[in-house]
């Protein structure tokens, strides 16, 4: 018995001896692991931590102290709630949008008369679709029941299948099945879809529960994955082509719509901001940089500032929203135009040094006004570093604006300390006319107004003969638009057609005409396998149709 005991004791001894080397108590298992693993564990700081703590109690104390400490003065009641801005919303459906619209129309007093109409609108949108619903109702009922059973067994009590949640679900499913536009919606087809949508319902339920539970904003990473779990885009298949008149003009100032009251209030806001000019000047003189944020164009405000307060000083006005601006341009304009040098050093660091030395020699104060320091061309770190080191110079005073929501991410601490910003909220609601004019707008891009107008202007400069050639090309393309793989009009065919209409007399003449189109990228030439050249116009057919209609009318 004593020997047994001894054996046990020795066993435990070996265990305890093993302990410092191996992280886990089960020595057998860790021995199986490769040697590298153990090495790694020994080297890794996390394993060393307990030992260190025992030796240096001071450090431990510091850590303990700092962890539970919370900022007190940083946050106040009038702050915008983080939950409002950054919260993951539950799964969105298209109904959210419609509900929002509907509630808005309920609220507005004008609509009382048309209130009856509003639901009609929704029905109108879907009524032709609903008729086409594929699956018979009883089949759907059966499936629904089955799914509910499944879900109930899955989520054991977590899911409370409230009937009210299922009502929109049904219509949604209908639309989904419609949107897949498969007339042969078999049961198998619909099943996964249905599951999917039910799942989304569950997630929504959970979210609601969470919202009630915690008023404090805590980021839940699960929500992110819930949002991105399905790759399917759950929006309707409407396209802008459904609009009857596609003539969306590019931004022109007369399209700005502001109500008169707002106009007045905006003017008041602007007046208030102008009262801050003296303060800004004072802060700039104390080597702070000023950064303006808030919605609305701040360009005019800065221009006013410049004309009112800085007209006696050298100023450089940079428009960061300009798409072809580079940091070199800014430096060049300072060095060449302002300081009167003839050459600019190639190294950016030396340029900054040069500016510094020249300004301090002549004791000139330079004001650098940057509209949109977060502009697309100034977003790279190189130009931000340069701008930061420029504004660090004692004689350079920077005043900049930001608009992009993620603009503050541009700067790390070293840059921020160089900039030494003081932040000013100058929300003005002035429309961004200049700033967005360069932006490749989604709507105008999609509607192709730009392409159309450029097409028109090129077309107008053509001779009547070449106009004819182009119309032949268009007509041919439109005639063959049903073809899935339209290869283009073969050159030979085009030549013969042109000969028929007496547009060209020779092969060479036609080629000469075509080069003009090719230069303007109105026509693409493709060589096929058999060596013949095919010509096609790389523009949307609908647009071409529109263009043709405009020309003929």
């Amino acid at each position: 018995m004593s020997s047994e005991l001894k054996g046990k004791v020795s066993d435990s001894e070996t265990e305890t001896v093993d302990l410092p080397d191996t992280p886990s108590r089960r020595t057998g298992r860790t021995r199986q692991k490769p040697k590298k693993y153990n090495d790694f564990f020994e080297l890794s700081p996390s394993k060393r931590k307990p030992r260190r703590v025992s030796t240096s109690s001071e450090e431990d104390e510091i850590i303990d102290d700092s962890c539970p400490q919370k900022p007190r003065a940083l946050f106040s009641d009038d702050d915008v709630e983080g939950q409002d801005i950054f919260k993951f919303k539950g799964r969105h459906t298209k109904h959210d949008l419609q509900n929002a619209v509907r509630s808005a129309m309920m609220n507005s007093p004008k609509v009382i008369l048309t209130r009856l109409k509003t639901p009609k609108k929704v029905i109108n949108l879907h009524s032709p679709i609903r008729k086409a619903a594929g699956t018979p109702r009883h089949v759907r009922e059966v499936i629904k029941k089955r799914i509910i059973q499944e879900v109930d067994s899955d989520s054991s009590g977590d899911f409370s299948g409230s009937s009210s949640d299922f009502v929109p679900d049904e219509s949604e499913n209908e639309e989904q099945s419609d949107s897949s536009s498969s007339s042969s919606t078999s049961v198998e087809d619909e099943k996964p879809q249905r599951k999917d949508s039910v799942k989304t319902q569950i997630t929504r339920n959970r979210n609601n529960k969470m919202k009630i539970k915690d008023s404090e904003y805590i980021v839940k990473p699960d929500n992110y994955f819930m949002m991105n779990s399905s790759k399917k885009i759950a929006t309707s298949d409407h396209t802008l082509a459904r609009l009857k008149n596609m003539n969306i003009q590019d931004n022109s100032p007369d399209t700005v719509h502001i109500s008169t009251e707002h106009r007045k209030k905006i003017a008041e806001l602007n007046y208030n901001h102008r009262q801050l000019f003296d303060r800004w000047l004072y802060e700039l003189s104390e080597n702070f940089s000023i950064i303006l944020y808030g919605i609305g164009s701040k360009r005019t405000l800065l221009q006013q500032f410049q004309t009112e307060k800085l007209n006696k000083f050298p100023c450089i006005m940079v428009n960061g929203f300009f798409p072809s601006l580079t940091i070199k341009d800014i430096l060049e304009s300072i060095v060449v135009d302002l300081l009167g040098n003839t050459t600019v050093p190639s190294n950016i660091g030396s340029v900054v040094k040069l500016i510094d030395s020249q300004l301090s020699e002549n004791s000139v104060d330079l004001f650098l006004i940057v509209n949109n320091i977060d502009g697309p061309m100034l977003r790279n770190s190189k130009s931000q570093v340069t701008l930061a080191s420029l504004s660090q110079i004692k004689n350079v005073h920077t005043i900049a604006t930001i608009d992009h929501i993620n603009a503050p991410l541009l700067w790390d601490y070293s840059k921020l300390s160089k900039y030494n910003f003081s932040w000013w909220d100058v929300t003005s609601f002035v429309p961004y006319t200049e700033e967005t004019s360069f932006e490749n707008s989604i709507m105008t891009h999609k509607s192709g107004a730009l392409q159309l107008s450029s097409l028109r202007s090129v077309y107008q400069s053509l001779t009547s003969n070449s106009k004819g050639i182009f119309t032949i090309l268009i007509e041919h393309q439109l005639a063959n638009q049903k073809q899935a793989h339209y290869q283009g009009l073969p050159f030979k065919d085009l030549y013969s057609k042109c000969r028929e209409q007496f547009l060209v007399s020779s092969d060479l003449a036609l080629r000469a005409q075509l080069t003009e189109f090719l230069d303007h990228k109105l026509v693409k030439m493709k060589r096929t396998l058999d060596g013949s050249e095919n010509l096609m116009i790389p523009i949307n057919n609908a647009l071409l149709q529109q263009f043709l209609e405009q020309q003929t009318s």
Partner: protein
Amino acid sequence: MVWQLIGNDLKNDEECDVLSTKHKLKKSQCTMKTLKTWYHSKYTNESTNKKKKLISTKTLVIVIPDFESFNCHLLQDFVMIISSYISSLPIVLVFGVATSVSALHKSFPYEVSSKLLIKVFHSHSSAVYMNQVLEDIFLTHTVPFHLSGKAFELLTDVFLFYDFSVKGLVQSIKYCMMDHYYGDNTKALCCNREDLEEAVLNLSPNDLESIRQLKSFRPYLEKQDCRTKISLFEDDQYFRDALYKELMKLHDYLYSFYLCVKLLSTLIKDIPNNLLGKTVREVYTKCATECITDTPSFKECMQLLSFQSQIKIVDTITGALKLLNSHLQSVSPIKPLQATPKKNNNNTDKVFAHRELGESFAKTVRVHLMTFLRQLENANTEASISTAMDTDSNDNVENVPGSRYKLKEKLLKATRVEKIQSEFEMIRCRFISYLEEMFAKGLQPPHTQTFHEIMFFSDISNVKKHIVGAPRGALHTALSDPAHYLQCSCCRLPSPESVAGTLPDVCLAYKLHRECGKHINLYDWLQAFAAVVKPGENDEQRHHDPIIQSRFTRAVAELQFLGFIKSSKRKTDHVMRLTW
């Protein structure tokens, strides 16, 4: 390329060192050879006989700050090249490494790092520097500008939770100072004690009027009798005198306040749980925001202090005394200056007569502490003697034969008596009560003082906006609740989620887009937009309205510019939301 950069580096180096040579080198000429020749011509020609000495003393120091941001290949080559010249050029490299020494080892392979003789110098963490800066510069009575508790808390919070940058802290204090002095003549009074009189005399009647309107003037006024009240309002000269007196009092108060703060922090430094905080700044924030002697944590601290052993308490008192002495020494040069106003103004005599704060306060505190110290040190022996005597008497009692009950009673008594008797404890008790009394006098929060607005900066809500900045929050409020900025009657919304047709277009589009998922169908979005803007029309009309379309286009473009959406290729006429 590498050579050029090194050359450039060297060139800068040379330019710093050799402004006297004044001939600029071309980039292509910047090689180690030229450096070597320059070095030798400079330092060996001067005194050839002392050659050896000079080489050992004059070393070329190349400072490379921010080590991590350099291209490590470039540095490797640089080190290798230098190492080959080390016999002729004594070069010392100084690397500024932000992370840890391992960064150096990681970026340099063995053959490079073997060329270096690395010595590591650690600097303190930035929090240590901040405490130093704050304690030695800002939390002293010599600086006329003071931060109120809240403002101070804000700045330290920004430091501790955002950036850990001492420079940033100093800049934000500077900003607070600018804000304090900006556009207010009365703040000229926020100056050193010796300049105060002049500043008071220079005030215009208007400035005096604005001082009369200060909030802290009212309680002071209520204490005065009727006639002085009238003369305070009517007679500018009289008001000036009163103002001067009060400000002198304020200075005295500050003096004792900071003294008490520091005393308190030294006293409670060793107390477990650090209820009031470890550093002086933490104690300061607590003291400056509320009347600390009334707080439970202060009482607990005092209680804990009263449990301390003799040796410890003696230690803390000596520490406190040391601090007091250094404090008094640092002030003594100012003392003669304080005497000057006495000659000019008869009233000031009275001020000094009945002032119970300030330097005299410090002196009385010192005297008290010293006596306590002596007593406590003496108490050491006395207490032991008394207990010894007690035990003797107990022994006597025990010797007398008696009932067990009596003995028990005696013993009980003895234990009780012993507790009360111990002289050390008695003195300790007195000491604690004295401390409480003293701190209650000295640690009145600043906002109870008359005219504290002049010396203390407290307008944090204003400054906070400019120091911290919340662009995202501003955008969000502007877009979801434009009435907050516009103050217009048409955009008042029942709830932040609701929408209305009168909103500016961008706001409307923003609100609708918040209702969508990750992808937004442009057509549906447009339809919703149109339905809200023109609720009266039917679908067909809306389809055709080019004005609405262009308005929508503009709003979408602006949202894209603001970074809320981007175009997506995954489905036709869809955009992607970039926010959650």
